[in-house]
């Protein structure tokens, strides 16, 4: 743990932003989104429109709030002290994301190691079972689940692994270029990362289509289907967010933002990208492969 105190320059003032309406508007948007969603899944009220309204409000705030932060950053309001706050903040935000995925990996390991084998052993251990025929092998959709074909690892998933790993390399290339002030290579590196991420998402969409239409593999396909779609689905959602963030960073680079010394937003997005990369590796091993 660092024993050196917060800031090194005596008399330096920390940047405290002016009052802002964005946070409370964002909360209102999230309320509309949540309330509309509840209406949609329970079939009452004008849920779809409430959700749409909430989404519009959230988008408005995202543009406004991030726009505000970018203009503050460009005006030179943030120096080393503020920069460090953002870095710590992003690190611990990613830590919460890690724990969110840990919940779903925990569920996967639990069904594979505990609940499915236990269900399969009921006859042997208890002499009675609701489902005496159930073998308890993985992959399974459970004793009463529909028949399905599990997703193989060495087709599209392996290709996707290669894509994401390469994108980790290209974003690092972009970072090195930024540090050496080679703006052209910086833009190319980011563009390549965006393209790789988008191709990954395209393959993922194709894979889902294939799963639903040809393999009988759906969210309803028992423990396998549930963990498969929730893990890959939330991962895909994060890749989508990461790709959008990379596009924003690319556009900012093209407008001349970021310098070799000051580029927190770039690094934050790069960290996020590496995070989704690592989640994919674990996912590839435990969801697709073994």
């Amino acid at each position: 743990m660092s024993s050196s105190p917060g800031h090194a320059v005596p008399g330096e003032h920390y940047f405290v932003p002016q009052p802002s309406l964005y946070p409370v508007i964002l909360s209102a948007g999230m309320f509309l989104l949540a309330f509309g969603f509840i209406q949609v899944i329970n079939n009452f009220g004008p849920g779809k429109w409430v959700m749409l309204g909430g989404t519009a409000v959230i988008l408005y705030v995202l543009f406004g709030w991030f726009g505000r932060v970018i203009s503050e950053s460009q005006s030179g309001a943030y120096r080393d002290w503020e920069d460090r706050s953002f870095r710590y903040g992003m690190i611990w935000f990613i830590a919460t994301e890690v724990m969110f995925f840990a919940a779903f990996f925990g569920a996967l390991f639990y069904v594979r190691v505990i609940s499915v084998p236990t269900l399969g052993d009921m006859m042997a251990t208890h002499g009675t079972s609701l489902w005496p025929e159930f073998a308890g092998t993985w992959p399974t959709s459970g004793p009463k689940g529909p028949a399905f074909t599990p997703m193989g690892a060495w087709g599209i998933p392996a290709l996707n692994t290669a894509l994401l790993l390469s994108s980790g390399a290209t974003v690092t290339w972009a970072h090195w270029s930024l540090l050496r002030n080679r703006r052209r290579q910086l833009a190319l590196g980011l563009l390549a990362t965006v393209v790789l991420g988008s191709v990954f998402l395209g393959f993922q969409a194709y894979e889902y289509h294939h799963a639903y239409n040809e393999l009988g593999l759906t969210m309803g396909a028992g423990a396998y289907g549930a963990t498969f779609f929730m893990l890959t689905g939330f991962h895909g959602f994060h890749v989508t967010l990461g790709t959008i963030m990379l596009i924003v960073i690319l556009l900012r680079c093209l407008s001349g933002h970021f310098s070799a010394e000051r580029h927190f937003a770039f690094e934050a997005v790069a960290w996020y990208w590496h995070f989704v990369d690592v989640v994919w590796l674990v996912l590839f091993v435990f969801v697709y492969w073994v």
Partner: protein
Amino acid sequence: MSIATTHPGGHAAEPYQGGLRRWLTTTNHKDIGTMYMMFSLIMFFVGGLMILAVRAELFQPGLQLMKPEFFNQLIGIHALVMIFAALMPAATGFANWMIPLMIGAPDMALPRLNNWGFWLLPPAAILLTLPFTLALFGIGDGALATGWTFYAPLSVQGGMGVDFAILAVHILGISSIMGSINIIVTIFNMRAPGMTMMKLPLFAWGWLITAFLLIATLPVLAGAVTMLLTDRHFGTHFFDAAGGGDPILFQHLFWFFGHPEVYILLLPVWGLMPHVLATFSRKPTYGYKAQVYSFIAIGLLSVVVWAHHFFTAGMPVPALIYFMFSTMAISLPLAVLFFCWIATMWKGAMSFETPMLFAIGFIVLFGIAGLTGLILADVAADAQYHHSYFVVAHFHYALFAGGIMGVMTGVYYWLPKWTGHMYCEKLGKLHFWLTVFSFNLTFIPQFFLGLAGMPRRIPDYALQFAEFNAISTVGAFILGLSQLIFAWNIWITVRGGKKAEGRVWESAEGLEWELSSPPPHHSWETQPVIK
């Protein structure tokens, strides 16, 4: 949107925003802290009213006032409101107000995020309580009726009140995570020059560990209720054995969050105690390092003991033994804390102002929570006590006597600093004695009810439990009414009263007492240097 030009290298004085706009838009840690405290106080009464309705129903055997379905809704929403909307915001309010003052920081590290963290709470509270209202209009069947634990399969089959609670928990979780990130960053990055981690005030240390626990466990709760949502509406089988899932999986995920949550509620209070005890004993805190290491040890242990909440659900024996002994191991660092609190008072020149009374009351009553917790941690004994009123009494000693009385300690201790006025000492003492008396009157009978076998979460009971229930209900109503004194005392202190000095308490130590009471809107813009 009122946004003035930014001033690199410093910040301009904020244009004063009057009325509602000030509170909606503020980025000031003191304003946000005040909003957290006020929200917490309001929700404390909302949750209290719910449980008074429950206690009124339980005054006599038989069904008097409400249908069992409504009773079930009240107990679940009471718990969620008290935990997520009363206790946690109170602790976050303390952190917002006091950590920047204590560590010599100009504000929280991420002020706009701070505002967002607060303003997520009202929408979430609306989501939690809205189903009651909708049910009046014939939409849905009321709020979550599963108890606050959402156990599957009941929650998978429950009405749309469950969906409201799931979404509310998501938003409350985002709020707490934003608050935690902000507190961690503030403590790591905003300390005054010379304030090393081992000079950090214990209150900040307690909150630092709390924030790490929130970051480690709240996302898991979010994941668990997300699985619940997809099991309810999108056809997954996480908690359905017919699909290879398991209802017990939900309990594992829930309590992986739920047990650390107990320490999330208590660590800020444990951090506050040594400050109060030292001030009114006129001695330095005993065992600073021991307390820091105990916080860390408790934080680490709290995430590996969760399954003691469902010993009776069925687990392999080695797992039972592991969870039993790891749970009991928490009593070691906790005993260190108790020892330090008592040793701080030892041979001190003690005086007994209201915060000190609450602190001592906290130590005694929270001690009872700890000792009854040891009984529940014993697998064999727990088979008898599980899901009985003994458990209810135990965790109210932990969360009311430990959590809420701890918060009251802090409120009385810091209210003069926040408002610039002394609270009314007479009313404060009256509030303390009424609270301690009626709290014990409410919950001691519940220990006996539990030992005699009365199950919790039941609106009706056998005749043999009638006397203790009647006593408990009388206690609960006195307890509830006594809190009006608390609210009144806060009200008159905010409005006026004897002027408080900067160093409100003569022997209080720490940077927060170097400032005037109330402190200027922006404090420590130039950081103090700690020698």
